[in-house]
């Protein structure tokens, strides 16, 4: 883990290498998680462009997947999906 190294050996003037936040897990921030119906999904990317994280991954088949390590469960994607292919389901 890069961040562990950075914690133990503070860098010069707190200068940070890029994108270490990828290691930060926000799973616990969420009460609901988005699930996509791949049949319904048209791959329009509207959910992707409105995601605040980004926690929506564009897949090679021109569809989307969720990055559940970083999704905070805000539900914007469910509201914005033009074909209602995303549902927020309660975390167990």
């Amino acid at each position: 883990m890069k961040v562990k190294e950075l914690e133990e050996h503070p860098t010069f003037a707190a200068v940070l290498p890029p994108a270490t936040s990828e290691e930060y897990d926000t799973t616990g921030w969420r009460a609901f998680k988005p699930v996509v119906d791949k049949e319904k999904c048209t791959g329009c990317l509207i959910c992707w462009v409105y995601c605040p994280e980004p926690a929506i991954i564009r897949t090679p088949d021109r569809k989307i997947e969720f990055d559940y390590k970083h999704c905070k469960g805000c539900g914007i994607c469910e509201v914005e999906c033009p074909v209602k292919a995303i549902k927020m389901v309660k975390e167990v």
Partner: protein
Amino acid sequence: MSYKPIRTLFELPTEENLAPGHRMCSGCGVTVGVRQILLAAPKDVIVVTATGCLEVSTVAYPYTAWRCPWVHVAFENAAAVASGIEAALKALERKGYGKRHPVIAFGGDGGTYDIGIQALSGALERGHRFLYVCYDNEAYMNTGIQRSGGTPYGTWTTTTPFGKVRPGKTEVKKNLMGIVVAHGIPYAATASISHWKDLMNKVRKALSCDGPSFIHLLTPCNRGWRFDPAQTIRIAKLAVETRYFPLYEVENGVYRITVPVPRPKPIEEFIKAQGRLRHLLRPEYADALATFKKQVEDYYSYVEMMTKATSSK
């Protein structure tokens, strides 16, 4: 201004300069905007951020969410820091020691309307080639929803609570675009995170200028505006559709409404969707509601008037 317009989402890069794992609130409008801006900007951009939500939540040591060079120095000086970067790179390139890169500075409404207005004015006047983005969530959200010069009239904040004698904030939202445009910079525009294509093309246009450019971006804040985080984009859209936040640009002094709203939705739809404004619908605040409405109408007419007045330019 020559730039490559964006038509579809598919042409946007998959690699982004903002990484996930930052600690902006769930459903935050700011990072939606920052992502859209960086998706439209060249990859080799250098980003300056004023103190605020975006700064504290994206770079908490040892975590940074930035893939591009990024710097924070203080609250009120993002435009000055950006000036220095731009000017230094210019000198380094001239001397053969380095290369110029596009520079974008992000400041919140507090860091722009209030404490940072002097540094912004200086940088705009001096003509540095950089884009300043004011992400406007209409109050000091990072410190806990205190009013700023960008907070609209009648709004509840923790320093403008509504009560028996006051309807919330008693002063109007400052005309930030008017101030910026008065500097005679090549490009200034308003934008909303709900209108991604409009925003992204404004970013492209702004960065194609050989001089300062400015984008005033509305970024609803579910914590401060009091609404369900899932509604962030809806609220941003309503702000446009009710004429609360007109989308326009000013290119070399010429105003143009980029998203005309010929048949606006009633402003009440925007008001009732948010806890910070909902009290205005109570009978005791009828006068305040009328003032709020009038200000929204006046501002839209002002933009229309400026569009007409500069159309022959």
